[in-house]
């Protein structure tokens, strides 16, 4: 059985009288330990998908299974717990707490989960051993994203969800981040899902899911993913 599976997922946003169908009939599955890239043009529904998977949003129809558990049916508090323990997020705009140092930002995440990794260690692992007591405003964009990653990783999640992690970074930095993501993922056996609109990145993935107009337009499996250093765009 697949680790993650979407089954006929449908998501409708209702705003007054207006109904917007963000996803309709999305079905795909992802195996454990895979690096999966979800691509699609803007507005295709990628973020919605990620939100549902991350327990940040509910679906209208269908169901989502994670490791056999139907997370779409979980009550709110269980969803939070689910998010707390199982999931690590990385966002496009880092979203660090400005008032906390890098170390404290990671500690923030570490303190809420059951088996965290050592925050300082995690930061060192992402190469920020020297920057532990710096505030986000004192860090560059890449460093900030790395802190964000460290924060996600420190939770020791099963699933790492990254929404356009390199969107706000330059080319080089972006690549470095991606490398970090994939390496860490493989090292720890985490399932990593990266959402992007950059189709070049699909090469590095084990599995690629194409989303278009709120539905899966295609899915591929890369038997031999290309290391990120070798991808040019």
């Amino acid at each position, binding site marked *: 059985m697949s680790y993650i599976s979407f089954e006929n997922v449908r998501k409708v946003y209702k705003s007054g009288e207006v109904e917007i169908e963000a996803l309709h009939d999305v079905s795909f599955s992802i195996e454990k330990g895979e690096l999966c890239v979800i691509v699609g043009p803007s507005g295709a529904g990628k973020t919605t998908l*990620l939100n549902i998977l991350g327990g940040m949003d509910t679906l209208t129809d269908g169901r989502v299974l994670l490791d056999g558990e139907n997370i779409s049916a979980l009550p*709110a508090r269980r969803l939070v*717990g689910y998010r707390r323990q199982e999931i690590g*997020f990385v966002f496009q705009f880092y*979203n660090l707490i400005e008032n906390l140092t890098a170390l*404290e930002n990671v500690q*923030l995440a570490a303190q809420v989960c059951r088996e965290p990794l050592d925050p300082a260690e995690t930061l060192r692992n992402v190469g920020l051993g020297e920057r532990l007591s710096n*505030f986000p*405003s004192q860090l560059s964009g890449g460093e900030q994203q790395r802190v964000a990653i460290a924060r996600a990783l420190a939770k020791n999640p099963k699933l790492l969800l990254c929404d356009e992690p390199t969107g706000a970074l330059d080319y080089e930095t972006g690549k470095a981040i991606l490398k970090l993501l994939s390496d860490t993922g493989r090292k720890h056996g985490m399932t990593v899902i990266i959402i992007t609109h950059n189709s070049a990145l699909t090469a590095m993935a084990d599995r690629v899911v194409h989303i278009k107009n709120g539905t899966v337009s295609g899915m591929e499996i890369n038997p031999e993913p290309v290391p990120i250093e070798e991808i040019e765009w």
Partner: protein
Amino acid sequence: MVRTAIRKNNIREIFRSPGRYFAILGIILLGAGFFCGLRVTRDAIVKTADTYFDRTSFYDYQIVSTLGYTETEVEAIRALGIAEAVEGMYTKDLLVALTEEDAAVHFMSLPSLVNTVDLMEGRLPEKSGEIVIDRYMASGFELGDEIALSDQNTQEDLESLATDTFTIVGMVNSPLFLNYERGSTSIGSGSLSFFAYVLPEDFTGDAYSAVYLRLGDLGFLYSDEYEEAADAAEESISRIAEDQAQQRYVRLVQENTEKLTDGEKEYLLGMIEYNKGKAKAEKELADAEDELRDAQAELILGRMQIIAGKQQLADGKAEAEKEFAEADKKLSDSLKQLRDGETVYAQGLADYQAGQAKYAAGLTQYNSSVSQYKDVFDLLAVYNDFQLESNDTQTALTALLSQMTMLGVTENMTLDEQLAAIDAYWTENEDDILDQMEDVADSAEALADALQVYTGNTAELKEFRNRIAAIRTLIKNKDKVDDSVTEIRSLISAVRDLYSSASKLMTSLTAKAQSAQKELSKAASQLAQAKKQLDAAKKQVDAARVTLDNGWTAYFKGVDELDKQRAAAEKKFADAETELADAEVQIEDGLAEYNDGLVKLDKGREETGQKLADAEQELADARAELDDGWEKLHDLKEPTAYTLGRWANIGYSCLNNDSMIVSNVAKVFPFFFFLVAALICITTMTRMVEEQRGQLGVLEALGYSRSTVMSKYLFYAGSASLLGCGIGIPFLCWLFPQLIWQAYRIMYNFSYTLEYVLDWKLAIITTVGYVAAILFVTWLTLAGLLKQAPAALMRPKAPKLGKRVLLERIPLIWNRLSFMWKVTLRNIFRYRSRVLMMLLGVAGCTALMITGYGIRDSISDVVTYQYSEVTLYEYEVTFSEEPDAEGKSDFAKTAARYSGDSLFVGSFNASARREKTEMDLTLISTDSGGEFSRYISLHKGAEEVPYPGRGEAVINNAAAEDLKLKIGDPVTLVLDEQEYQLTVSGIFDNYIYNFLLISDETYQDMTGSLPEHKTAFVLHRDGAADATARLLNFSGVLNVTAGSVMKDRIGGIMDNLVYIVILTIVCAAALAFIVIYNLINININERLREIATVKVLGFYRGEAAVYVLRENLLLTLLGAIAGIPLGILLNSFVMGSIQVDLVSFIPRVKFPSFVWSVFFTILFSFLVYLIMMRRLEKINMAAALKAAE
């Protein structure tokens, strides 16, 4: 070009964040409304009162004279034309009987020109006996009920009204009694329960108790205009009052003199009548007495008669008894006798019967004997017959013979004649003799037969027969015989022979028979004797029987008779008794009548005596009255007239004071509301603008002018504040007065609602103030922001640098802190301005609440404190003149008896001045400085303040504060327009009224004479009853004010104030709520991203809330605590500015008030957080995180 898009944006902004918009609107609504509402309250109250007074033609001046004024004087005053309306009013305090106890009621005559009543229910009286009562203070009455004057009223009092029962036809309010106080009186308990109006015709007196003048519409209530106009008229009115009083005096004297003279005349007439009447009555009584005496005599006689009769009856009865007894005895004797007789008779009878039996036996024997001898005796019988016959015949024959012989010898006859006579004679009798001879023969034959039987045929017998036959032959051969004599003789011899034969025959038999006969005759004679005896016995027995029977008959007869007699006797006695009884009854009746007669006589006597006594009394009374009247007239003093303005009316002056309180509070307090409200709104707008910097940039980049860009925010803020003012001011200008008035209505009942007063000037100023303030600041912020280039605006604001907190440098503490605490502290120190705003806002609200409580706390204590610690006397008694030493001593005794010790002091209206400040106060002068502290305790804090010495003055703290006096300072006393310099030797705590105390010595030094002690303070013993009435009754006493009355009055004011305070607290609380809400709202809005991140990280709902709200909580708490000193300060400031004529306050806040204020602040915070948490929930994490700042 019509810019619809941007306009839409402007308007939508409001709906996008309604919370913020309405928060601003709400805060301004409260702030502006509170400000204006409080300020207009007094105006509304005064206006309402003014309208009420106009409607009821409330008086301007009241004139009172010691002699009163009559309609004549009133007309005269009216004629002078100085007043719009003049009217006299009768008043009388009377006791009215209620279900439980009597109530003292102030009766007034129903006015129609001045001080008219306000009819609330029912109708006004139209005829005598109808009454309208005090709607407010008279409870438990309904229309149609009857009110009766109590019989506890003095006769004189009862006479002052025409009737003593009234029917309630309506309920009214009176402008003379604006508040709940009805005043004190000298009857009953000393305080009046309620007032009542009756028609003037129901008052019997002719002198009005007061005359009221209404000069016209002199000005608005309590206004300076009014005061001036009223003052201007005072002098002339005063003069008129005196003048009219004097005229009345003259008239009165005249009237009374006339009346008295008439009275004397009547008295004389009365005297004469009395004497006449007395004589008549006495005679009548004497006559009646005589009558009774006679009656009595008769009765006695009758009685005696009855007694005699009774005695007679008794005697008769006794005798009768005796007789009956005797008769009884006799009868019983007879009975006994009879019984004995019966016994005897029985015995006799038995004997007789025995005898009879014996006789019978004897007879039987005899008979048998006889039958033995029967034959013999038959024979004898026949023999007897024969004998008889023979005898007879013999006799007859003999006789004949003799005759014939005689004849034969008859002389003158010849023998032949003789023989012929003898033959004739014989022939005549021959037949007879022959018959006889036949008979003899028969009987002899019978005898012979019988003998034959007996003896047989004996020779003798035959012989006999032969004789018989001989006879017969003779007979036969009668004719054969010629000689009659021979015949006869033959016959005689035949018969004789027969006889002798028979005799012979019979001899033995005869002898036997004779012996038997003897025997038998013996037996027979025995028997006969026995029979005789028996017969005699029978006769006896029979006789005895008869006797006995007679006896029984007689006895029963006797018994019957006796019974009859007895019955008759008894009847007689009964009749006699009945008669006697009747006679007795008659006597009894007669006696009763007599007694009645006695009673009637007594009664008549009594009545007469009473009537005479009454008449005497009347005459004596009349005399006394007349004497009294003459004396009174003699004593009638010239009158004193008093002119009193409106200030003398309690309700009037109280309303002024009471309403001043509100306006005083309103002077200061609302400013702070204004400040807090303004501050918050400014913050909100500033933050809003900051938040939307991106939008600003965009619009600018699009090419819209700065003013257009600003317009949205200015519109937002401007419309919110305008609406807030526009709604708040009119609404709260209506609401606050109404609410506050509801509290006042406990004391004042003249109007249900207040007139709506909207001070346009104030409203406009307030609105302009608020709107301008907000617009200005908004504009300022916008201007500052828009200085930057659009691009810069569009870029997200660089987040504030994270900084190290000072505390971090103290690892000791820092490392101990939990992670979350570090976050919180950092946040606090990072956003200083935000924090400051929060602190200020919360502190401000807490301070407002504390002040609200503080006002209440300061006030509530004043009354208790004053009356338990300072004003120790209970009654303040005002005299019309200072009593002499004796009077004072009497008063002291009276006071001591009913209440407690007393002290006479001089009390004057004066004022004190220092430099430019002058204030009115009460000057008190006494020579008993040592005693004084028992009545008004002089102390400051715990220290005692001694009574001032010569040239010194002691003043109360409030006055000292106002005049800025310290101990040792000089102070100017202004008394009767003269000024005197004194030195302040002490300042004492006193919160009600203002006092300056000096000694009599000082007074004398000042004015040259000792002060008049027209006032007395009286202490009140624990447990003593209300002595107001008694003190009022003391001669010369003008007025008595009881401390309890003052306490209630002031307490009432304080209660009203509390209401205001509650209102304030509620508003402050509302403000606090809105403020906190707003600030936190802003806070959250600014940290959406952070919150979303944290939620995404997996913070539970509570954790996320805490993360955000912890600092808010902390700030709220800190703010609340910071608000405490602020509140105390504010409270002192506000209390200091609340000036009420009577009372000054000790600003203080009680501990619980602090607790409550902080508590409420925290409570509101929690409420807000609860609301906020829901908002946090709803944050769309993904959206928040995705958006570029």
